[in-house]
Protein backbone atom coordinates (compact mmCIF):
# COMPACT_ATOMS: atom_id res chain seq x y z
CA UNK A 1 0.00 0.00 0.00
CA UNK A 2 2.83 2.39 0.82
CA UNK A 3 4.25 1.73 -2.61
CA UNK A 4 0.93 2.64 -4.21
CA UNK A 5 0.82 5.80 -2.11
CA UNK A 6 4.34 6.70 -3.22
CA UNK A 7 3.39 6.09 -6.85
CA UNK A 8 0.35 8.31 -6.38
CA UNK A 9 2.45 11.12 -4.88
CA UNK A 10 4.96 11.00 -7.73
CA UNK A 11 2.10 10.98 -10.21
CA UNK A 12 0.54 14.11 -8.70
CA UNK A 13 3.90 15.90 -8.73
CA UNK A 14 4.38 15.02 -12.39
CA UNK A 15 0.90 16.18 -13.28
CA UNK A 16 1.45 19.56 -11.64
CA UNK A 17 4.86 19.92 -13.29
CA UNK A 18 3.28 19.09 -16.64
CA UNK A 19 0.74 21.89 -16.18
CA UNK A 20 3.40 24.50 -15.63
CA UNK A 21 6.16 23.43 -18.02
CA UNK A 22 6.20 24.97 -21.46
CA UNK A 23 7.46 27.65 -23.78
CA UNK A 24 5.16 30.43 -22.63
CA UNK A 25 5.45 31.37 -19.00
CA UNK A 26 2.78 30.04 -16.71
CA UNK A 27 3.26 30.13 -12.96
CA UNK A 28 1.01 28.76 -10.22
CA UNK A 29 1.10 32.23 -8.71
CA UNK A 30 -0.42 33.85 -11.80
CA UNK A 31 -3.18 31.27 -11.93
CA UNK A 32 -3.98 31.69 -8.24
CA UNK A 33 -3.97 35.49 -8.63
CA UNK A 34 -6.62 35.10 -11.30
CA UNK A 35 -4.61 36.41 -14.26
CA UNK A 36 -7.03 35.86 -17.21
CA UNK A 37 -4.26 35.18 -19.75
CA UNK A 38 -2.71 32.59 -17.46
CA UNK A 39 -6.04 30.89 -16.82
CA UNK A 40 -6.84 30.88 -20.49
CA UNK A 41 -3.53 29.23 -21.34
CA UNK A 42 -4.06 26.69 -18.58
CA UNK A 43 -7.55 25.77 -19.74
CA UNK A 44 -7.04 25.70 -23.49
CA UNK A 45 -3.60 24.16 -23.75
CA UNK A 46 -1.80 22.97 -20.62
CA UNK A 47 -4.67 21.25 -18.86
CA UNK A 48 -5.91 19.49 -22.03
CA UNK A 49 -2.41 18.30 -22.75
CA UNK A 50 -1.83 17.01 -19.22
CA UNK A 51 -5.22 15.32 -19.10
CA UNK A 52 -4.63 13.79 -22.53
CA UNK A 53 -1.28 12.36 -21.44
CA UNK A 54 -2.81 10.90 -18.28
CA UNK A 55 -5.79 9.39 -20.10
CA UNK A 56 -3.73 7.97 -22.94
CA UNK A 57 -1.02 6.64 -20.63
CA UNK A 58 -3.51 5.01 -18.27
CA UNK A 59 -5.59 3.41 -20.99
CA UNK A 60 -2.63 2.14 -23.04
CA UNK A 61 -1.23 0.55 -19.87
CA UNK A 62 -4.53 -1.16 -19.05
CA UNK A 63 -4.89 -2.35 -22.64
CA UNK A 64 -1.41 -3.87 -22.36
CA UNK A 65 -2.36 -5.61 -19.12
CA UNK A 66 -5.52 -7.08 -20.63
CA UNK A 67 -3.59 -8.30 -23.66
CA UNK A 68 -0.99 -9.94 -21.41
CA UNK A 69 -3.64 -11.71 -19.38
CA UNK A 70 -5.59 -12.97 -22.38
CA UNK A 71 -2.54 -14.02 -24.38
CA UNK A 72 -1.09 -15.42 -21.14
CA UNK A 73 2.21 -13.88 -22.01
CA UNK A 74 4.27 -11.14 -20.40
CA UNK A 75 5.45 -9.71 -23.72
CA UNK A 76 2.07 -9.21 -25.30
CA UNK A 77 0.67 -5.73 -25.78
CA UNK A 78 -1.17 -3.95 -28.59
CA UNK A 79 2.03 -3.10 -30.47
CA UNK A 80 3.46 -6.64 -30.19
CA UNK A 81 0.27 -8.33 -31.32
CA UNK A 82 -0.52 -6.71 -34.65
CA UNK A 83 -3.26 -4.64 -33.02
CA UNK A 84 -1.64 -1.22 -33.47
CA UNK A 85 -0.73 -1.93 -37.09
CA UNK A 86 -4.22 -3.18 -37.83
CA UNK A 87 -5.67 -0.03 -36.27
CA UNK A 88 -3.45 2.14 -38.51
CA UNK A 89 -4.50 0.15 -41.56
CA UNK A 90 -8.13 0.62 -40.57
CA UNK A 91 -7.70 4.35 -40.13
CA UNK A 92 -5.95 4.55 -43.49
CA UNK A 93 -8.73 2.66 -45.23
CA UNK A 94 -11.34 4.85 -43.55
CA UNK A 95 -9.47 7.99 -44.60
CA UNK A 96 -9.35 6.78 -48.20
CA UNK A 97 -12.78 5.24 -48.57
CA UNK A 98 -14.90 7.30 -46.17
CA UNK A 99 -13.23 10.72 -46.34
CA UNK A 100 -16.39 12.65 -45.47
CA UNK A 101 -17.38 10.61 -42.45
CA UNK A 102 -16.99 12.11 -38.97
CA UNK A 103 -13.87 11.10 -37.12
CA UNK A 104 -15.78 8.85 -34.74
CA UNK A 105 -16.88 6.65 -37.65
CA UNK A 106 -13.32 6.37 -38.92
CA UNK A 107 -12.32 5.47 -35.40
CA UNK A 108 -14.84 2.65 -35.30
CA UNK A 109 -13.44 1.33 -38.57
CA UNK A 110 -9.97 1.46 -37.05
CA UNK A 111 -11.26 -0.33 -33.94
CA UNK A 112 -12.85 -3.05 -36.06
CA UNK A 113 -9.55 -3.57 -37.89
CA UNK A 114 -7.70 -3.61 -34.58
CA UNK A 115 -10.07 -6.26 -33.24
CA UNK A 116 -9.57 -8.35 -36.35
CA UNK A 117 -5.80 -8.00 -35.93
CA UNK A 118 -5.91 -9.01 -32.26
CA UNK A 119 -8.26 -11.89 -33.09
CA UNK A 120 -5.94 -13.09 -35.83
CA UNK A 121 -3.06 -12.95 -33.36
CA UNK A 122 -4.93 -15.04 -30.77
CA UNK A 123 -6.05 -17.44 -33.48
CA UNK A 124 -2.48 -18.02 -34.64
CA UNK A 125 -1.32 -18.49 -31.04
CA UNK A 126 -3.96 -21.16 -30.45
CA UNK A 127 -2.70 -23.12 -33.46
CA UNK A 128 1.04 -23.18 -32.95
CA UNK A 129 3.11 -24.82 -30.22
CA UNK A 130 4.28 -22.12 -27.83
CA UNK A 131 7.63 -23.68 -27.11
CA UNK A 132 9.00 -20.52 -25.53
CA UNK A 133 7.42 -17.39 -24.08
CA UNK A 134 9.27 -15.48 -26.80
CA UNK A 135 7.28 -17.14 -29.56
CA UNK A 136 4.19 -15.10 -28.66
CA UNK A 137 5.66 -11.61 -29.22
CA UNK A 138 7.57 -12.87 -32.27
CA UNK A 139 4.31 -13.99 -33.83
CA UNK A 140 2.78 -10.64 -32.95
CA UNK A 141 5.66 -8.63 -34.35
CA UNK A 142 5.69 -10.66 -37.55
CA UNK A 143 1.96 -10.21 -37.96
CA UNK A 144 2.35 -6.50 -37.25
CA UNK A 145 5.11 -6.16 -39.82
CA UNK A 146 3.06 -7.86 -42.51
CA UNK A 147 0.11 -5.59 -41.84
CA UNK A 148 2.45 -2.61 -41.52
CA UNK A 149 4.05 -3.31 -44.89
CA UNK A 150 0.67 -3.38 -46.60
CA UNK A 151 -0.30 -0.18 -44.82
CA UNK A 152 2.89 1.63 -45.86
CA UNK A 153 2.40 0.52 -49.43
CA UNK A 154 -1.13 1.88 -49.58
CA UNK A 155 -0.12 5.09 -47.79
CA UNK A 156 2.74 5.55 -50.23
CA UNK A 157 0.46 5.08 -53.24
CA UNK A 158 -2.05 7.62 -51.96
CA UNK A 159 0.41 10.09 -50.51
CA UNK A 160 -0.68 9.55 -46.92
CA UNK A 161 2.68 8.62 -45.43
CA UNK A 162 2.55 11.71 -43.27
CA UNK A 163 -0.67 10.69 -41.56
CA UNK A 164 0.75 7.24 -41.07
CA UNK A 165 3.84 8.72 -39.42
CA UNK A 166 1.61 10.70 -37.07
CA UNK A 167 -0.20 7.55 -35.98
CA UNK A 168 2.95 5.61 -35.43
CA UNK A 169 4.76 8.15 -33.27
CA UNK A 170 2.94 9.46 -30.23
CA UNK A 171 3.00 13.24 -29.83
CA UNK A 172 1.04 15.47 -27.49
CA UNK A 173 2.35 18.83 -28.71
CA UNK A 174 -0.71 19.51 -30.85
CA UNK A 175 -3.24 18.68 -28.14
CA UNK A 176 -5.63 21.54 -27.48
CA UNK A 177 -9.11 21.72 -26.05
CA UNK A 178 -11.49 20.07 -28.51
CA UNK A 179 -8.90 17.69 -29.92
CA UNK A 180 -8.41 15.09 -27.27
CA UNK A 181 -11.84 14.44 -25.75
CA UNK A 182 -12.10 11.02 -27.36
CA UNK A 183 -9.41 9.92 -24.95
CA UNK A 184 -11.99 10.17 -22.16
CA UNK A 185 -13.94 7.48 -23.96
CA UNK A 186 -10.80 5.37 -24.32
CA UNK A 187 -10.11 5.69 -20.62
CA UNK A 188 -13.70 4.93 -19.70
CA UNK A 189 -13.49 1.75 -21.78
CA UNK A 190 -10.25 0.74 -20.13
CA UNK A 191 -11.76 1.46 -16.73
CA UNK A 192 -14.66 -0.82 -17.67
CA UNK A 193 -12.15 -3.64 -17.46
CA UNK A 194 -11.95 -3.05 -13.73
CA UNK A 195 -15.59 -3.99 -13.33
CA UNK A 196 -14.98 -7.28 -15.08
CA UNK A 197 -11.61 -7.80 -13.44
CA UNK A 198 -12.47 -11.21 -12.00
CA UNK A 199 -13.64 -12.58 -15.32
CA UNK A 200 -10.50 -11.32 -17.03
CA UNK A 201 -8.31 -12.87 -14.34
CA UNK A 202 -10.08 -16.22 -14.65
CA UNK A 203 -9.66 -16.06 -18.42
CA UNK A 204 -5.97 -15.40 -17.74
CA UNK A 205 -5.78 -18.83 -16.09
CA UNK A 206 -6.43 -20.34 -19.50
CA UNK A 207 -9.29 -22.07 -21.23
CA UNK A 208 -9.44 -25.20 -19.10
CA UNK A 209 -9.56 -23.40 -15.76
CA UNK A 210 -12.14 -21.02 -17.22
CA UNK A 211 -14.43 -23.79 -18.43
CA UNK A 212 -14.05 -25.62 -15.12
CA UNK A 213 -15.14 -22.47 -13.31
CA UNK A 214 -18.09 -22.06 -15.65
CA UNK A 215 -16.83 -18.95 -17.41
CA UNK A 216 -17.81 -18.34 -21.01
CA UNK A 217 -14.20 -18.19 -22.17
CA UNK A 218 -14.82 -17.07 -25.74
CA UNK A 219 -17.12 -14.29 -24.68
CA UNK A 220 -14.65 -12.90 -22.15
CA UNK A 221 -11.88 -13.16 -24.72
CA UNK A 222 -13.95 -11.22 -27.23
CA UNK A 223 -14.91 -8.64 -24.62
CA UNK A 224 -11.31 -8.12 -23.49
CA UNK A 225 -9.96 -7.91 -27.02
CA UNK A 226 -12.70 -5.43 -27.95
CA UNK A 227 -11.59 -3.11 -25.15
CA UNK A 228 -7.99 -3.44 -26.27
CA UNK A 229 -8.95 -2.77 -29.89
CA UNK A 230 -11.05 0.31 -29.16
CA UNK A 231 -8.51 1.82 -26.78
CA UNK A 232 -5.75 1.20 -29.32
CA UNK A 233 -7.72 2.74 -32.17
CA UNK A 234 -8.60 5.84 -30.19
CA UNK A 235 -5.13 6.45 -28.81
CA UNK A 236 -3.35 5.74 -32.09
CA UNK A 237 -5.53 8.13 -34.05
CA UNK A 238 -5.67 11.00 -31.53
CA UNK A 239 -2.06 11.08 -30.30
CA UNK A 240 -0.25 8.24 -32.05
CA UNK A 241 1.32 5.09 -30.74
CA UNK A 242 3.25 5.17 -27.47
CA UNK A 243 5.68 2.26 -27.58
CA UNK A 244 6.66 0.09 -24.59
CA UNK A 245 4.13 1.67 -22.25
CA UNK A 246 1.70 -1.24 -22.50
CA UNK A 247 4.59 -3.59 -21.84
CA UNK A 248 6.43 -1.87 -19.02
CA UNK A 249 3.59 -0.52 -16.84
CA UNK A 250 1.73 -3.84 -16.40
CA UNK A 251 4.96 -5.72 -15.72
CA UNK A 252 6.02 -3.24 -13.06
CA UNK A 253 2.57 -3.41 -11.46
CA UNK A 254 2.59 -7.19 -11.59
CA UNK A 255 5.97 -7.28 -9.92
CA UNK A 256 4.59 -5.26 -7.02
CA UNK A 257 1.08 -6.65 -6.62
CA UNK A 258 0.74 -9.71 -8.83
CA UNK A 259 -1.80 -10.26 -11.60
CA UNK A 260 -5.10 -10.35 -9.79
CA UNK A 261 -6.70 -7.79 -12.10
CA UNK A 262 -8.82 -6.23 -9.38
CA UNK A 263 -5.64 -5.06 -7.67
CA UNK A 264 -3.42 -4.76 -10.74
CA UNK A 265 -5.62 -2.50 -12.89
CA UNK A 266 -5.53 0.64 -10.69
CA UNK A 267 -1.77 0.47 -10.14
CA UNK A 268 -1.13 -0.31 -13.81
CA UNK A 269 -3.16 2.73 -14.86
CA UNK A 270 -1.32 4.91 -12.34
CA UNK A 271 2.09 3.71 -13.50
CA UNK A 272 1.10 4.08 -17.15
CA UNK A 273 -0.12 7.64 -16.63
CA UNK A 274 2.94 8.50 -14.52
CA UNK A 275 5.38 7.11 -17.06
CA UNK A 276 3.62 8.91 -19.89
CA UNK A 277 3.71 12.17 -17.94
CA UNK A 278 7.41 11.74 -17.16
CA UNK A 279 8.30 11.03 -20.79
CA UNK A 280 6.15 13.85 -22.14
CA UNK A 281 7.67 16.26 -19.62
CA UNK A 282 11.23 15.16 -20.36
CA UNK A 283 10.52 15.51 -24.07
CA UNK A 284 9.54 19.11 -23.45
CA UNK A 285 12.59 19.88 -21.30
CA UNK A 286 15.67 18.12 -22.73
CA UNK A 287 15.82 20.14 -25.93
CA UNK A 288 14.04 23.25 -24.70
CA UNK A 289 12.44 25.22 -26.35
CA UNK A 290 11.97 22.42 -28.89
CA UNK A 291 9.99 19.29 -28.17
CA UNK A 292 10.85 15.64 -28.55
CA UNK A 293 7.64 13.65 -29.11
CA UNK A 294 6.62 11.17 -26.42
CA UNK A 295 6.85 8.29 -28.89
CA UNK A 296 10.58 8.90 -29.19
CA UNK A 297 11.12 9.57 -25.48
CA UNK A 298 9.21 6.48 -24.48
CA UNK A 299 11.17 4.49 -27.04
CA UNK A 300 14.34 5.37 -25.15
CA UNK A 301 13.12 5.25 -21.54
CA UNK A 302 10.65 2.42 -22.07
CA UNK A 303 13.18 0.21 -23.76
CA UNK A 304 15.65 0.75 -20.92
CA UNK A 305 13.00 -0.12 -18.34
CA UNK A 306 12.04 -3.12 -20.40
CA UNK A 307 15.63 -4.32 -20.55
CA UNK A 308 15.83 -3.93 -16.80
CA UNK A 309 12.73 -6.08 -16.38
CA UNK A 310 14.00 -8.58 -18.91
CA UNK A 311 17.32 -9.04 -17.17
CA UNK A 312 15.64 -9.35 -13.77
CA UNK A 313 14.49 -12.78 -12.71
CA UNK A 314 11.00 -11.92 -13.88
CA UNK A 315 11.07 -13.57 -17.26
CA UNK A 316 13.45 -16.41 -16.61
CA UNK A 317 10.86 -18.89 -15.34
CA UNK A 318 8.40 -18.24 -18.18
Amino acid at each position, binding site marked *: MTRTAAALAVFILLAVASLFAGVSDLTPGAVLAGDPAAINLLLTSRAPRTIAVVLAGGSVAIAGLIMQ*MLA*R*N*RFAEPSTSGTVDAASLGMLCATLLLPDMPVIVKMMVAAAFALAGAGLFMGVLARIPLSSPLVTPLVGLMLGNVIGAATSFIAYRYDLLQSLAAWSNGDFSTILRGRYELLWVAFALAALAWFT*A*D*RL*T*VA*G*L*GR*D*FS*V*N*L*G*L*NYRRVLLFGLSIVAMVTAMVVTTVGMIPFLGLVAPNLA*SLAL*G*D*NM*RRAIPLTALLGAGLALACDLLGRLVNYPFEIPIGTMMGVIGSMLFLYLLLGKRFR*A*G
Partner: protein
Amino acid sequence: MIEIRDVRKSYGDTAVVQGVNLTLPRGGVTAIIGPNGAGKSTLLTMIGRLLPMSGGQILVDGIDVAHAASHALARRLSILRQDNHIAARLTVRDLVAFGRYPHSHGRLTREDGVHVARALDFLGLTHLADRFLDELSGGQRQRAHVAMVVCQDTDYILLDEPLNNLDMKHAVGMMQLMRRMADDLGKTIVVVLHDINFASCYADHIVAMRDGRVIREGAPAAIMTADAMRAIYDIDMHIEKIGGDRIGVFYRQPARD
Protein backbone atom coordinates in the same frame (compact mmCIF):
# COMPACT_ATOMS: atom_id res chain seq x y z
CA MET B 1 -24.22 -40.74 -10.60
CA ILE B 2 -21.99 -40.50 -13.66
CA GLU B 3 -23.25 -42.48 -16.64
CA ILE B 4 -20.87 -42.96 -19.54
CA ARG B 5 -22.53 -44.40 -22.62
CA ASP B 6 -20.55 -45.75 -25.52
CA VAL B 7 -18.12 -42.87 -25.42
CA ARG B 8 -15.54 -42.52 -28.15
CA LYS B 9 -12.78 -40.08 -28.96
CA SER B 10 -10.74 -40.21 -32.12
CA TYR B 11 -8.08 -38.05 -33.67
CA GLY B 12 -8.25 -38.53 -37.41
CA ASP B 13 -8.57 -42.27 -37.92
CA THR B 14 -7.09 -43.21 -34.56
CA ALA B 15 -9.51 -43.94 -31.76
CA VAL B 16 -7.89 -43.18 -28.41
CA VAL B 17 -11.00 -43.95 -26.36
CA GLN B 18 -13.69 -46.25 -27.61
CA GLY B 19 -16.66 -48.28 -26.48
CA VAL B 20 -16.51 -47.02 -22.91
CA ASN B 21 -19.63 -47.79 -20.88
CA LEU B 22 -19.43 -47.07 -17.18
CA THR B 23 -21.72 -46.20 -14.34
CA LEU B 24 -20.07 -44.56 -11.37
CA PRO B 25 -22.37 -44.36 -8.36
CA ARG B 26 -22.76 -41.27 -6.22
CA GLY B 27 -20.32 -41.01 -3.35
CA GLY B 28 -17.03 -42.78 -2.87
CA VAL B 29 -13.66 -42.78 -4.56
CA THR B 30 -13.18 -44.28 -8.01
CA ALA B 31 -9.62 -44.73 -9.27
CA ILE B 32 -8.86 -44.92 -12.99
CA ILE B 33 -5.67 -46.83 -13.66
CA GLY B 34 -3.83 -48.01 -16.75
CA PRO B 35 -0.59 -47.62 -18.67
CA ASN B 36 0.57 -44.39 -20.34
CA GLY B 37 -1.53 -43.53 -23.33
CA ALA B 38 -4.42 -45.77 -22.24
CA GLY B 39 -6.88 -42.88 -22.58
CA LYS B 40 -7.40 -42.10 -18.87
CA SER B 41 -6.91 -38.35 -19.20
CA THR B 42 -8.90 -38.27 -22.40
CA LEU B 43 -11.86 -39.94 -20.67
CA LEU B 44 -11.59 -37.74 -17.59
CA THR B 45 -11.42 -34.50 -19.58
CA MET B 46 -14.46 -35.57 -21.58
CA ILE B 47 -16.39 -36.16 -18.34
CA GLY B 48 -15.26 -32.71 -17.25
CA ARG B 49 -16.45 -31.22 -20.61
CA LEU B 50 -13.01 -29.83 -21.37
CA LEU B 51 -12.74 -32.03 -24.45
CA PRO B 52 -15.54 -32.71 -26.94
CA MET B 53 -16.44 -36.36 -27.55
CA SER B 54 -16.43 -37.94 -30.99
CA GLY B 55 -19.41 -40.07 -30.02
CA GLY B 56 -21.50 -41.24 -27.11
CA GLN B 57 -22.94 -39.44 -24.15
CA ILE B 58 -21.95 -38.60 -20.58
CA LEU B 59 -24.55 -37.78 -17.96
CA VAL B 60 -23.78 -36.38 -14.52
CA ASP B 61 -26.85 -36.63 -12.27
CA GLY B 62 -28.82 -36.96 -15.48
CA ILE B 63 -27.33 -33.80 -17.02
CA ASP B 64 -25.67 -34.19 -20.40
CA VAL B 65 -22.26 -32.58 -19.90
CA ALA B 66 -21.80 -31.78 -23.58
CA HIS B 67 -24.93 -29.64 -23.70
CA ALA B 68 -25.37 -28.37 -20.16
CA ALA B 69 -24.84 -24.71 -19.31
CA SER B 70 -21.22 -24.57 -18.30
CA HIS B 71 -21.79 -22.19 -15.38
CA ALA B 72 -24.44 -24.44 -13.85
CA LEU B 73 -22.26 -27.51 -14.25
CA ALA B 74 -19.39 -25.69 -12.55
CA ARG B 75 -21.33 -25.82 -9.29
CA ARG B 76 -21.72 -29.61 -9.52
CA LEU B 77 -18.54 -30.83 -11.05
CA SER B 78 -14.94 -29.70 -10.98
CA ILE B 79 -11.90 -31.02 -12.80
CA LEU B 80 -8.18 -30.61 -12.47
CA ARG B 81 -6.07 -31.65 -15.43
CA GLN B 82 -2.81 -33.53 -15.37
CA ASP B 83 -0.65 -30.60 -16.46
CA ASN B 84 -1.51 -27.09 -15.48
CA HIS B 85 0.46 -24.06 -16.31
CA ILE B 86 -0.68 -20.76 -14.91
CA ALA B 87 1.15 -17.80 -16.43
CA ALA B 88 -0.59 -15.21 -14.28
CA ARG B 89 1.19 -14.20 -11.10
CA LEU B 90 -1.38 -14.96 -8.43
CA THR B 91 -1.06 -15.69 -4.74
CA VAL B 92 -2.12 -19.09 -3.46
CA ARG B 93 -5.03 -17.47 -1.64
CA ASP B 94 -6.19 -15.67 -4.80
CA LEU B 95 -6.06 -18.86 -6.85
CA VAL B 96 -7.95 -20.85 -4.24
CA ALA B 97 -10.51 -18.06 -3.88
CA PHE B 98 -11.19 -18.27 -7.64
CA GLY B 99 -12.53 -21.74 -6.86
CA ARG B 100 -15.53 -19.86 -5.45
CA TYR B 101 -16.13 -18.12 -8.78
CA PRO B 102 -19.03 -20.37 -9.85
CA HIS B 103 -20.82 -19.51 -6.61
CA SER B 104 -19.86 -15.91 -5.95
CA HIS B 105 -18.82 -14.51 -9.35
CA GLY B 106 -16.08 -12.56 -7.69
CA ARG B 107 -17.96 -11.01 -4.79
CA LEU B 108 -16.67 -13.16 -1.97
CA THR B 109 -19.06 -13.60 0.93
CA ARG B 110 -18.21 -14.66 4.48
CA GLU B 111 -19.16 -18.19 3.58
CA ASP B 112 -16.76 -18.12 0.63
CA GLY B 113 -14.06 -17.01 3.03
CA VAL B 114 -14.74 -20.06 5.19
CA HIS B 115 -14.40 -22.33 2.15
CA VAL B 116 -11.11 -20.70 1.15
CA ALA B 117 -9.66 -21.08 4.63
CA ARG B 118 -10.82 -24.68 4.83
CA ALA B 119 -9.35 -25.61 1.45
CA LEU B 120 -6.03 -24.00 2.37
CA ASP B 121 -6.05 -25.92 5.65
CA PHE B 122 -6.98 -29.24 4.00
CA LEU B 123 -4.00 -28.99 1.65
CA GLY B 124 -1.60 -27.69 4.30
CA LEU B 125 -1.13 -24.37 2.50
CA THR B 126 -2.19 -21.92 5.18
CA HIS B 127 1.36 -20.78 5.84
CA LEU B 128 1.97 -20.32 2.09
CA ALA B 129 -1.30 -18.55 1.37
CA ASP B 130 0.23 -15.20 0.51
CA ARG B 131 3.06 -16.54 -1.64
CA PHE B 132 2.90 -16.14 -5.40
CA LEU B 133 2.45 -19.37 -7.34
CA ASP B 134 5.75 -18.85 -9.16
CA GLU B 135 7.49 -18.88 -5.78
CA LEU B 136 6.34 -22.40 -4.86
CA SER B 137 7.89 -25.81 -5.36
CA GLY B 138 6.28 -28.21 -7.84
CA GLY B 139 4.49 -30.18 -5.15
CA GLN B 140 3.28 -27.08 -3.35
CA ARG B 141 1.92 -25.73 -6.61
CA GLN B 142 0.15 -29.02 -7.30
CA ARG B 143 -1.48 -28.80 -3.87
CA ALA B 144 -2.53 -25.22 -4.58
CA HIS B 145 -4.29 -26.36 -7.76
CA VAL B 146 -6.08 -29.12 -5.87
CA ALA B 147 -7.03 -26.64 -3.15
CA MET B 148 -8.75 -24.50 -5.76
CA VAL B 149 -10.84 -27.44 -6.92
CA VAL B 150 -11.63 -28.42 -3.32
CA CYS B 151 -12.70 -24.84 -2.67
CA GLN B 152 -15.10 -25.10 -5.59
CA ASP B 153 -17.00 -27.49 -3.33
CA THR B 154 -18.74 -29.50 -6.02
CA ASP B 155 -20.48 -32.86 -5.58
CA TYR B 156 -18.24 -34.40 -8.21
CA ILE B 157 -14.49 -33.89 -8.24
CA LEU B 158 -12.30 -35.18 -11.06
CA LEU B 159 -8.56 -35.24 -10.46
CA ASP B 160 -5.95 -36.30 -13.00
CA GLU B 161 -2.85 -37.63 -11.25
CA PRO B 162 -3.09 -35.35 -8.22
CA LEU B 163 -0.16 -37.15 -6.61
CA ASN B 164 2.21 -35.74 -9.26
CA ASN B 165 5.24 -34.16 -7.60
CA LEU B 166 4.08 -35.00 -4.08
CA ASP B 167 6.37 -36.53 -1.48
CA MET B 168 5.21 -39.63 0.40
CA LYS B 169 3.73 -37.75 3.29
CA HIS B 170 1.77 -35.38 1.10
CA ALA B 171 0.71 -38.19 -1.23
CA VAL B 172 -0.78 -40.06 1.72
CA GLY B 173 -2.31 -36.79 2.93
CA MET B 174 -3.91 -36.24 -0.50
CA MET B 175 -5.42 -39.75 -0.53
CA GLN B 176 -6.69 -39.31 3.03
CA LEU B 177 -8.24 -36.01 2.00
CA MET B 178 -10.09 -37.72 -0.85
CA ARG B 179 -11.37 -40.38 1.54
CA ARG B 180 -12.46 -37.72 3.97
CA MET B 181 -14.26 -35.70 1.31
CA ALA B 182 -16.07 -38.82 0.15
CA ASP B 183 -16.92 -40.14 3.63
CA ASP B 184 -17.61 -36.96 5.57
CA LEU B 185 -18.79 -34.58 2.87
CA GLY B 186 -20.49 -37.06 0.55
CA LYS B 187 -18.41 -36.10 -2.49
CA THR B 188 -17.94 -38.34 -5.51
CA ILE B 189 -14.27 -38.48 -6.44
CA VAL B 190 -12.86 -39.80 -9.69
CA VAL B 191 -9.10 -39.86 -9.69
CA VAL B 192 -6.48 -41.03 -12.18
CA LEU B 193 -3.67 -42.79 -10.32
CA HIS B 194 -0.45 -44.46 -11.34
CA ASP B 195 0.40 -45.79 -7.92
CA ILE B 196 -1.61 -48.95 -7.92
CA ASN B 197 -1.12 -49.48 -4.19
CA PHE B 198 -2.72 -46.15 -3.35
CA ALA B 199 -5.65 -47.17 -5.52
CA SER B 200 -5.82 -50.49 -3.70
CA CYS B 201 -5.76 -48.93 -0.23
CA TYR B 202 -7.98 -45.89 -0.73
CA ALA B 203 -10.39 -46.47 -3.62
CA ASP B 204 -13.82 -48.06 -3.39
CA HIS B 205 -13.81 -48.89 -7.04
CA ILE B 206 -11.11 -49.29 -9.66
CA VAL B 207 -11.52 -48.84 -13.42
CA ALA B 208 -8.63 -50.18 -15.49
CA MET B 209 -8.10 -48.90 -19.02
CA ARG B 210 -5.85 -50.05 -21.78
CA ASP B 211 -5.69 -49.00 -25.44
CA GLY B 212 -8.68 -46.74 -25.09
CA ARG B 213 -10.96 -49.35 -23.56
CA VAL B 214 -12.04 -50.28 -20.08
CA ILE B 215 -10.67 -53.78 -19.62
CA ARG B 216 -11.34 -54.43 -15.93
CA GLU B 217 -13.59 -52.85 -13.39
CA GLY B 218 -14.40 -53.69 -9.81
CA ALA B 219 -13.52 -53.47 -6.13
CA PRO B 220 -9.79 -53.31 -5.29
CA ALA B 221 -9.86 -56.94 -4.19
CA ALA B 222 -11.01 -57.98 -7.66
CA ILE B 223 -8.47 -55.85 -9.55
CA MET B 224 -5.47 -56.45 -7.31
CA THR B 225 -4.63 -59.84 -8.70
CA ALA B 226 -1.50 -60.95 -10.49
CA ASP B 227 -3.63 -61.96 -13.41
CA ALA B 228 -5.40 -58.61 -13.80
CA MET B 229 -2.15 -56.70 -13.40
CA ARG B 230 -0.57 -58.68 -16.21
CA ALA B 231 -3.56 -57.94 -18.42
CA ILE B 232 -3.47 -54.23 -17.63
CA TYR B 233 0.23 -53.43 -17.39
CA ASP B 234 2.05 -56.40 -18.91
CA ILE B 235 4.08 -56.88 -15.78
CA ASP B 236 4.44 -59.61 -13.22
CA MET B 237 3.19 -58.45 -9.89
CA HIS B 238 3.41 -60.22 -6.62
CA ILE B 239 0.34 -59.36 -4.54
CA GLU B 240 0.72 -59.55 -0.79
CA LYS B 241 -1.96 -59.04 1.83
CA ILE B 242 -0.69 -56.68 4.46
CA GLY B 243 -2.97 -55.56 7.29
CA GLY B 244 -6.10 -56.12 5.23
CA ASP B 245 -4.78 -54.28 2.15
CA ARG B 246 -3.60 -55.88 -1.04
CA ILE B 247 -0.18 -54.53 -1.92
CA GLY B 248 1.48 -55.19 -5.26
CA VAL B 249 5.23 -55.61 -5.47
CA PHE B 250 6.71 -55.30 -8.93
CA TYR B 251 10.10 -53.63 -8.60
CA ARG B 252 12.08 -56.56 -10.01
CA GLN B 253 10.90 -58.06 -13.26
CA PRO B 254 12.29 -61.14 -14.98
CA ALA B 255 14.66 -60.16 -17.79
CA ARG B 256 12.91 -60.00 -21.16
CA ASP B 257 14.32 -60.90 -24.51
